[in-house]
């Protein structure tokens, strides 16, 4: 009998084109998503060497990082951003590639539209020139971020040169308390394993708390695998996955559906499969979480206080904590709920899906954003926006004093006009609290959509459980 395999092993083994003696593999890539920021130099490389795109049918282009979230009727005001988006459009035309234009209702963040369109499916290998490609792992697809040279390699050859990663399983047992979301689960995981804890690994998320999540929640968890150091995260496909994919426009055709589903059901890890690293945590122990520093591992329950660098595990960490506190303008011992915010951002590939907007709207409903707070809601895609509007969520947000924007990456990385001013502090549903991430000198506290809505209303970091 064959040795039991993990989900990762199964996907990997079924995509090896060739394996060299030293273990280096040529891995076939089923789907390639391309956005404007990391692709121009790759297309230029193809042009210079006279190469074509091998699988236009397996490639999908969309602009998301640079795009304004206000009036879409106007050309992009920032010249460099406009050139980058126009370059993507030209490359789509020149190489004959499917492209979702800015004016299309389906436009949005690449990691939101892939699943929405059914372009993302279980068992696939998927790459994109973006580290949050791990999001697609929620479907049981091996999805990872690559650099521009690898984008060029995949465009030209539909393969990547790689060695297999190690297997890590993170099991989240039991069920979370009220007020604890998928975002809190992944922040708790990163807090536990550290920002380099998953380096060299692919993480499979398992356990009752993961299985109970919707596809949206699973995407939030897998999305931040990279913040735990792992290039990819996975959740085994199940009935929730299959139900989500049914009828998606780029998914299997009706006459292929049964065969596809049968294949997807064969993918979960075999009984007895072994992992190089195992981590376990209990969902019931997780509280609503907030980051205090400049690394996603700098995470604490909202009931906590800013930590003292004197308690750091070593000299390197102590120096980095001191620097983080200085950058964040915080003092050790300050209660997190005493920290005022000036901006609230709800959106990004981490938390820009319909479920996220519903969770934030449930807190915002009938309340008002605190005076002096700028609060943005940026849906992850045009379709998310439309669905939210159909459900009346836009009215809830607008009534409460939030701005209701067009889809894009927006203030997650501040490449478009949505950014923090130096010293400005945000409560944000995005994925990175690095120095300058949301604008030079900006200070970011990561948390769940409901927690950001709560912070917007109180004008300071707040415990969502106080809003019942």
């Amino acid at each position, binding site marked *: 009998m064959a040795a039991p395999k993990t989900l990762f092993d199964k996907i990997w083994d079924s995509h090896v084109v060739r394996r060299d003696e*030293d273990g280096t593999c040529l891995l*076939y890539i089923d789907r390639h998503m391309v956005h404007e920021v990391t692709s121009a130099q790759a297309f230029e490389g193809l042009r210079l060497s006279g190469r074509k795109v091998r699988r236009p049918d397996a490639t999908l282009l969309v602009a998301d990082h640079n795009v304004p979230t206000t009036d879409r009727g106007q050309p992009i005001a920032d010249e460099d951003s406009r050139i980058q988006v126009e370059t993507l459009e030209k490359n789509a035309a020149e190489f004959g590639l499917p492209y979702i234009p800015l004016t299309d209702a389906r436009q949005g963040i690449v990691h939101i539209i892939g699943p929405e369109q059914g372009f993302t499916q279980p068992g696939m290998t998927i790459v994109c020139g973006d580290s949050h490609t791990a999001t697609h792992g929620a479907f049981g697809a091996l999805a990872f971020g690559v650099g521009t040279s690898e984008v060029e390699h995949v465009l030209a050859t539909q393969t990547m040169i790689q060695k297999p990663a190690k297997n890590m399983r993170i099991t989240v047992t039991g069920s979370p308390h009220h007020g604890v979301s998928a975002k809190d689960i992944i922040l708790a995981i990163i807090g536990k394993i550290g*920002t380099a804890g998953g*380096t060299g690994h692919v993480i499979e998320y398992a356990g009752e708390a993961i299985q109970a999540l919707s596809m949206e929640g699973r995407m939030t968890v897998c999305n931040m695998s990279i913040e735990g150091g792992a290039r990819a995260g996975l959740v085994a496909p199940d009935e929730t996955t299959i139900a989500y994919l049914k009828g998606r426009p780029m998914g299997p055709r009706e006459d292929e559906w049964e065969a596809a589903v049968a294949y997807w059901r064969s993918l979960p890890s075999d009984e007895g499969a072994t992992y190089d690293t195992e981590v376990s945590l209990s969902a019931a122990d997780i509280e609503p979480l907030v980051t205090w520093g400049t690394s996603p591992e700098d995470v604490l329950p909202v009931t906590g206080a800013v930590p003292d660098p004197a308690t750091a595990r070593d000299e390197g960490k102590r120096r980095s904590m001191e620097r983080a506190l200085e950058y964040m303008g915080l003092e050790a011992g300050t209660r997190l709920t005493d920290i005022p915010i000036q901006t609230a951002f709800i959106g990004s590939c981490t938390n820009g899906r319909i479920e996220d907007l519903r969770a934030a709207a449930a807190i915002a409903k009938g309340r008002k954003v605190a005076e002096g707070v700028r609060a943005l809601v940026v849906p992850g895609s045009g379709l998310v926006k439309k669905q939210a509007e159909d459900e009346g969520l836009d009215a809830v947000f607008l009534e409460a004093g939030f701005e209701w924007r067009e889809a894009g990456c927006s203030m997650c990385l501040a490449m478009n006009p949505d950014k923090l001013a130096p010293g400005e502090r945000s409560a944000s549903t995005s994925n990175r609290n*690095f120095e300058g991430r949301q604008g*030079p*000198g900006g200070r970011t506290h990561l948390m769940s959509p409901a927690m950001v809505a709560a912070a917007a209303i109180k004008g300071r970091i707040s415990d969502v459980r106080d809003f019942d």
Partner: protein
Amino acid sequence: MEKFTTLTGIAAPLPMINVDTDKIIPAKWLKTIKRTGLGPALFEAIRYRQDGSEDPDFVLNKEPYRKAEILVTGENFGCGSSREHAVWALNGFGFRCVIAPDFADIFYSNAFKNGMLLIKLPQEEVDKLMEDAEKGENARLTVDLERQVVVRPDGEEIHFDIDPFRKHCLLEGLDDVALTLQKKEEIETFESGQKAATPWLYR
């Protein structure tokens, strides 16, 4: 791709952990459609003051480190975004080699695709090289990729491990797209098998 064989040059100390790619190159520089010209933006937020002038305390604004070619730094260097601009910015400044206890995965791949050697060494060894790098004009290291050693100013050699395929590509300056295209028939064979087994992947 430019070959990497041996390198003797100034090593600059950057004793920080978790240096992320936003710190190496902020997002506003990602609007370029070129690979070149990013050197002046390297480490922008910690290298320049708010008025745009150089921060004289930052290592790369001091002699001899303005011409450093080797960077010695802390664990998890290059974490965060997949932006290859981080490597292009390091390259643009003049760095050809970074030494650290470990690197983030995507950054690690990106560097080698641009002829940059990343060397992983145990913390104790990095600590020694960090001390060497703090010696100003004497902060001179030699990296010999063929022999897989870093030579300290006092002549002591520190061995490092490296994946044989990556080593080969760097030594020869190989373009891996061209290498892979030589395996076109194997790719075609794979595709026809996959198309028969899972036809919904082909539209």
